[in-house]
């Protein structure tokens, strides 16, 4: 035990050998979340409207103000503009011809997503204003929440980032520092060590898990502060993220050992963490997208971690927990097996 404690202590001191990498691994996801949640993922959209000259136009502006969003903040922020102002991101004009009043949306964008969002907002405002006159053909939107709680999307986005930040920290730190051992020739210390390599490997994994948990903790706090929602059990979150840390650590260690160069190992760590995040339920539950996406999402571990985290944040089970646990166990064993093989090849056996 004394040796293991000393090995872990030494591993933790290694933070000093790559401080910027640790800062990136631990703080970058929380920073990224803050920027995206605070600026980008926000339901309120500015909608340009040409200053109305008739009563119907005024009513449309009022209807725009009345349309709400699930988390209470305004859905539309009408911005009044002059007739000759450039279209910019798009503009709604109130046009009256032959006693017919129409709201016309002009746009000149190539960003179909923004076009869609602006069009949806105009439709929502128009429905509010004119639905009564459509009689039996009216469209009414009624929300039937399927979750006991209906927190904002930002919470889901943050929750799905927890596996990503865990993966990222383990993969980046594991890959970069292991590759650095080759670059500085300190790997010789490990190659000639007479003690059990399992102990050395275990100590390094513990370090990576601790760093991953630290990174996830920072993000969990930021997500909690943003949304005022906290998971039902912090130890359960830690337990769910443990296999993700082992998977990220295994991939990072393998990259560092095989590539023996810190920059490529860094890129592999970054790429695999972001790849698994995007494919693994990053922006919504896989069932909400195409069947192809759902299939691919089953091939990355993050999806299963999100399924297990979901009940802790939303108080609702969305998948078979046993299947998710089994999948994460298999992924962990595969990643650790890969790292063990790479360690054996690069460190333990004599160079041919």
């Amino acid at each position: 035990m004394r040796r293991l404690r000393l090995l872990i202590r030494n591993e933790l001191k290694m933070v000093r050998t790559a401080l910027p990498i640790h800062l990136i691994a631990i703080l970058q996801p929380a920073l990224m979340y803050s920027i995206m949640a605070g600026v980008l993922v926000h339901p309120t959209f500015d909608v340009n409207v040409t200053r109305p000259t008739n009563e119907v136009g005024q009513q449309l502006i009022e209807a725009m103000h009345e349309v709400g969003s699930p988390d209470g903040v305004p859905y539309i922020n009408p911005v009044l503009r002059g007739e000759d102002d450039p279209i910019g991101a798009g503009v709604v004009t109130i046009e009256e011809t032959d006693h017919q009043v129409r709201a016309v949306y002009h746009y000149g964008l190539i960003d179909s997503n923004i076009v869609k969002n602006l069009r949806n907002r105009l439709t929502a405002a128009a429905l509010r204003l004119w639905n009564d006159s459509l009689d039996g053909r009216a469209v009414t939107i009624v929300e039937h929440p399927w979750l006991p709680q209906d927190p904002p999307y930002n919470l889901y986005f943050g929750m799905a980032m927890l596996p990503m930040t865990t993966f990222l920290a383990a993969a980046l730190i594991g890959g970069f520092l292991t590759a650095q051992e080759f670059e500085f020739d300190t790997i010789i210390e490990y190659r000639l060590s007479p003690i059990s390599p399992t102990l050395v490997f275990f100590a390094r994994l513990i370090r990576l898990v601790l760093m991953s948990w630290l990174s996830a903790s920072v993000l969990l706090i930021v997500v909690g502060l943003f949304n005022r929602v906290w998971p039902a059990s912090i130890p359960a979150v830690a337990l769910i993220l443990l296999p993700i840390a082992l998977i990220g650590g295994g991939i990072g260690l393998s990259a560092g050992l095989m590539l023996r160069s810190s920059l490529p190992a860094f890129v592999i760590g970054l790429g695999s963490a972001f790849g698994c995040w995007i494919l693994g339920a990053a922006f919504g539950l896989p069932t909400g997208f195409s069947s192809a996406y759902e299939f691919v999402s089953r091939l990355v571990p993050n999806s299963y971690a999100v399924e297990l985290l979901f009940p802790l944040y939303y108080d609702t089970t969305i998948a078979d927990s046993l299947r998710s646990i089994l999948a994460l166990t298999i992924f962990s064993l595969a990643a650790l097996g890969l790292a063990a093989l790479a360690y054996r090849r690069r460190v333990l056996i004599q160079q041919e």
Partner: protein
Amino acid sequence: MESTQLAVRVDSVTRRFGELTAVNELSFAAHPGEIFGLLGPNGAGKTTAINLITGLLKRHGGAIQILGFDPQTQAREVRRRIGLVPQDTNVYADLNGVDNLLHHAALYCDDLADIEKRIEGMLRWMNLWERRADPVRTYSGGMKRRLALARALLHDPQVILFDEPTLGVDVQGKHVLWEHIKAQQAQGKTFIVSTNNMEEADTLCDRLVIIDHGKAIAMDSPERLKAALARDVVTLRTTPNIENPTSLFSGLGLQAATFPQPDQLRLEVTNAESIVGELVARTTAGHRLDAVRITRPTLDDVFLHHTGRALRE
């Protein structure tokens, strides 16, 4: 000699890298408590030989035994008994001296009780205790080498392999390092030292093997290797220059005569002390003798004798 009585036995060892044979049928043996040198120019195969002895590299032929254990098949037994100071000082530059040794202790020391005290003792002995809390990147080259030696000695190995001990170390640092190696030898440690520095080989090594192109070309103590050349060097500076030294000094045991510089005549003779009087007399009969110097052969001369090239080439 029984291999168990030897600290290191290298027997006809060969190692190839593709087409290049880096170590070619190399053989030597080091006794316990001996400082044994591997002397040769850069690229001679010294570091490869050290890597083969440690077991870092697989050999393609021959046999190696460290205190009776084969590094290829009994790696763990060998690793317990050896310490390595590689050519590139591979310490953690961002950690301090104590942390570097603690890192090594966790990987190598059988007994971790009182490890802090042992580390303190080692750092004090190496005159590094005052700088123990400083990052190693702030150490001088000599301090880093001493730290690397302290690290290699921490787990009390019987055989220490030291690759280019004083590479990049200043003159003062060299002597300090040599003293530490000698002090460890006095405690019964065996050192295998690779070097291309003649002064280091001369000062430090009890015996050495001269390696060129991976092959052993001579092996003995530095004194005996030089004595085996059976010649001294006499350097003369005269006015005017001596035109025909072979005829002027005939009968004096002249082995060779060269002009390393236009005004300098270099004579190789069998025994300079016995003929120096006659040599001066014959010179001054027709020339003014400006300077005369008698030198013993160096290891460079030994290398030159065996390979036709200077060691520093």
